[in-house]
């Protein structure tokens, strides 16, 4: 009896350990396959994560949106923001909401901080993980192309039902790894 219970628990634990990473993968694969693509223009920000490796730290320009009147918002709160595209085809945060919009594309995320009437959102794609040999050069290129005088970098994100998955980082219209291959000296000190 006790052995059966133990074996059952054993099985459950094994399945859970496999199921959670698998679910993480499936959810994102689905968004990458079916989600709507958006381009977010990046703005200037030696990132390193012991578990997940080197990455390019991403910052974003238009990450704030006006608070709708009559509502109070605070740090850490989960909110939904309706997305629009501007004239150049970049994503724009259009309207902040507490409830999920029915049809329009939207992004679900958390509030970073509230400054007066402006609510600053934490865009849930702040890291672009890269090969440890490529990441430093990529970071350099990304910085050079994200300054005010030269705004040439953006990320493509796929979004489905508010859930966003970062697809790629683009510089000068090319995915960063292609750009690196074409400009071997770029971004190196």
């Amino acid at each position, binding site marked *: 009896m006790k052995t059966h219970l*133990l074996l059952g*628990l*054993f099985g*459950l*634990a*094994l399945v*859970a*350990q*496999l199921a*959670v*990473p698998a679910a*993480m*993968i499936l959810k*994102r*694969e689905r968004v990458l396959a079916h989600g709507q693509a958006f381009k977010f223009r990046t703005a200037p920000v030696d990132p390193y*994560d*012991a*578990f*997940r*490796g*080197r*990455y390019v730290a991403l910052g974003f320009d238009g990450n704030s949106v006006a608070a709708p009147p009559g509502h109070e*918002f*605070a*740090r*850490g*709160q989960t909110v939904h923001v309706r997305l629009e595209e501007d004239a150049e085809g970049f994503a724009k945060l259009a309207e902040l909401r507490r409830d999920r919009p029915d049809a329009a594309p939207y992004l679900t995320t958390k*509030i970073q901080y509230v400054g007066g009437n402006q609510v600053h959102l*934490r865009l*849930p*794609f*702040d*890291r*672009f*993980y*890269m*090969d*440890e040999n*490529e*990441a430093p050069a990529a970071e350099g290129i990304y910085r050079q192309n994200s300054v005010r005088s030269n705004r040439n970098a953006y990320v493509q994100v796929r979004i489905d039902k508010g859930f966003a*998955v*970062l697809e790629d980082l683009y510089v000068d219209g090319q995915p960063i*790894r292609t750009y690196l291959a074409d400009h071997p000296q770029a971004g190196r000190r």
Partner: protein
Amino acid sequence: MSPKYVRWFLGELPSLLESGVIDGATAERLRRHYGTAAGKSRNWALTVFGILGGTLVGLGLILLLAHNWADLSRAARTALAFAPLVAAQLLALWVFRAGRESAAWREGLGLFWTLAVGAAIALVAQTYHIPSDAGRFALTWMLLALPIVYLLNATGPALVYLAGLAFWAGDVQSNGGQALPFWPLAALILPHVVSAARGNPYAARPALLFWGLAVALSVALGITLEKILPGLWIIVYGALFAVLYLAGEFWFGEAPSVWQKPFQTFGAVGGVALAFLLTYDWPWQEIGWHYLRHGAAYHGFAATLDYALAALLPVAAIVLLVGSVRRGKSHALFIGALPILAVLGYALAAQPRGENAAIALFNLYVFVVGLGLLVRGFRARRSGTVNLGLVVVFALILLRFFDEDLGFVFRGVVFVLLGLAFLVVNLVLARKKGAAQ
């Protein structure tokens, strides 16, 4: 006993037998007892090497995956993410079926398995550029790894679990959330602690777990307090350290070494450190205006824990203190008095200009604790206790000497008077000694 002495002692047995001090049966029993003791130290080495091996392999795999092999497809990365985890699971099944019960297997594999779970989630996060929510990463990891503690009956993963949970709690609270679930989640480890401590609570496994619990308890308490009523932490922490110390003395009083007294040691060191903090004016002055949490970061329900702890912990401390004094352990008063003084200081600081009284109270308290340790050490002729007392007293003297908040004349007069008092006591003691001789 170290193997050297065991060998010496076993070598003595024939002569003891010859001279009739012990009989043959006793000699055999002694041989068997010390023989297994020597064997135990070999098992211990195997366990330590097993732990080092499992940890290093696991960490190495995480580093290899963190390199981020950019040319691998997402499918290949998925396979890579699962490979170490599945390997650990298969090994565990084998250990389970083959009945490999040794601590070396259980602890070594347990740590490797725990790390393999983390590696799998980390690689998925890397592949899909999942944002930097370190707290959530830690929580997912710890919850998935918890069953390992029970499946393998392994203590290493239990300690990792406590550390990971504490990390999660800190991350949640610093981002405006509330980490109260820490307590029920941490309690999930208790059955393991109880089963490990059954039999000999002073063995290495329970001692390690008790240290882990004492640290996790003290850290997590400060993290999860809602801190709505400013300064309440003074009472809560004062009582917590006293309860840790007194509970240790009460239930694990016969521990032979400091290392086997995790609750006493942690409670005493924490209590004295807290008392030192309270000899400054900032903790007292911040009462009344320092509101740490507000807006969406304000969680009214969570403050219930603050109030409950502020009421229950001091009561628990006083009950334990009375019990200890009744058993003749009057030295428990030193740390045991801390919650009473904390409540007193809190009440004093609520009066206009009352901080000064509270500060004076704690200066006096630290001084008395230091002197008490000195006297106890001299009486029992224990140089360790004497040195500890000296450290406390001298630390207090130095801190006050450099304390800018007190006037020069005031400090000077107090120092000279105290110094004279010591000299007079010395003179009296020397005369008494002379008269006795």
